């Protein structure tokens, strides 16, 4: 069948033109699919946001999500921050000693953690933990008709399932990242004092000396955006999953991958907003 078509094509078109047309058609189709997906996501986001601000609210659901995201992510985010701070101190020591700038280590650790590594690595870890869990839970609810059941019980799934997750993500990530900042800086301190033999009090004063509120604040703003994106991707992919266990698996993967990519891209954009010198 297909071979027959091809040979027909061959008769009517120059081979290259045929290929070009095929390429253009495929590109066009991909672009349309992309536009449709973007539109669908925009609609989803708009609907979800509108339900975040309109009652009824579900305080129990919000609380449950806040505990899930904020409290149970503490170990993994804390561990990430601790070792990141430690390795930062080690790396900058070995690098900076080449031009006798070891004294800058405390500052480098504090700035890198608060501005970049705390929010980004924390966000990526939470994306893996929470984004996946949300997509799997909501996806399973979709394919087992639990979301339909919500509607028949006069409960809007956007209000009951999605709004609480978005609000919790938005609220808890900054808190998590604040804790991560402290633990990360403490990790750098540990390595600096116990391994690299810095004086403890001068390391601490060095940490504070050049750290500005904006460094921390920019990191927390990033965290809020990342938290929102993680919940949004988890909910979006879960909500639109179909086709049983396989569909839920795909939704989970897509949620984590898309949230991670969005974190990296938005991180660059927000950094540009806060710190562009030009």
């Amino acid at each position: 069948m297909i071979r027959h078509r091809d040979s027909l094509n061959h008769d009517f078109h120059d081979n290259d033109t045929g290929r070009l047309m095929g390429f253009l058609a495929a590109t066009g189709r991909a672009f349309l699919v992309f536009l449709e997906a973007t539109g669908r996501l925009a609609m989803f986001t708009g609907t979800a946001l509108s339900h975040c601000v309109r009652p009824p609210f579900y305080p129990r659901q919000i609380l449950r999500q806040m505990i899930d995201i904020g409290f149970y992510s503490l170990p993994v985010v804390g561990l990430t921050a601790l070792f990141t701070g430690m390795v930062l101190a080690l790396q900058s020591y070995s690098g900076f000693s080449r031009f006798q700038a070891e004294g800058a280590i405390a500052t480098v650790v504090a700035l890198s953690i608060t501005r970049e590594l705390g929010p980004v690595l924390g966000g990526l870890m939470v994306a893996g933990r929470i984004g996946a869990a949300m997509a799997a839970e909501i996806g399973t609810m979709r394919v087992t008709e639990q979301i339909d059941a919500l509607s028949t019980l006069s409960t809007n799934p956007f209000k009951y399932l999605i709004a609480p997750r978005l609000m919790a993500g938005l609220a808890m990530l900054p808190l998590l990242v604040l804790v991560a900042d402290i633990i990360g800086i403490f990790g750098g301190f540990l390595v600096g004092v116990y391994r690299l033999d810095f004086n403890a009090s001068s390391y601490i004063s060095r940490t504070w000396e050049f750290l500005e509120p904006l460094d921390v604040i920019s990191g927390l703003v990033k965290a809020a955006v990342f938290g929102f994106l993680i919940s949004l991707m988890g909910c979006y992919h879960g909500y639109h999953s179909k086709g049983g266990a396989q569909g839920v698996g795909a939704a989970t993967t897509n949620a984590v991958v898309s949230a991670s990519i969005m974190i990296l891209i938005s991180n660059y954009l927000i950094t540009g907003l806060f710190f562009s010198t030009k």
Partner: protein
Amino acid sequence: MPSRSDTNRTPPSTTPKITLKGVTKHFGPKKVLNGIDLQVGTGESLVVIGGSGTGKSVMLKCILGLLHPDSGSIRVDDAETTKLNPRDREKLQHKFGMLFQGAALFDSLPVWENVAFGLIQGEHMPRAQAKEIAIAKLGAVGLTPDVAELSPSELSGGMQKRVGLARAIADEPEIIFFDEPTTGLDPIMADVINELIVECVKDLGATAVTITHDMASARKIADRVAMIHQGRIIWTGHAKDIDQSGNPYVDQFVNGRADGPIKMQIRAL
């Protein structure tokens, strides 16, 4: 409240509760509903029979507003429902109860909160009061109060269906849908569920639409039977006429024969 006895059902009332006219629905290239015309009288128990994949569940979901039909009209209590805004749709949901094909219990909540869900979230009843009602409803479907604290995943299929039934009737809806209530159950449990359905519908005086391909279930529950085939209602009639329908499709289905006008689609469309 119209009461109905098991053996000698009163003829269904003539005022229509639900009216479908020319309802169509497709998914991608696949036409699932091809113009459904159907009427369900107030207080009537209608059973819809038809093969797997003929669009029975899709039809119910269109009535419930979970899916939007491509065209056609769906009226409930003589009011058009296909063009409702989300808020009015939410209000309308109070009239409906639904037992899903797979029970669709919320696995993050204990059994009693599943049953009380519509009361707590939909009607803002205090939790303690809702729990009492939930336990009473569980009793009505033959489950003891100690089941109330279990998680749905700890229950057998038959028990899950009963909990789903209790949830569907908890806020006393005017219209109840049962999607394959006996599929996957042993014949005895199936009969228990059938009895419960008849009883619950009778107690509530509700209008009921039941989907099934279990003829024993259909005979037990139905006032009237409708047969769906290839996205159309091809026959409706009284339950007692089902064996003399004179319709070869219905005959083949009722008697479960492989040869007849209904050709099984072996390959998916």
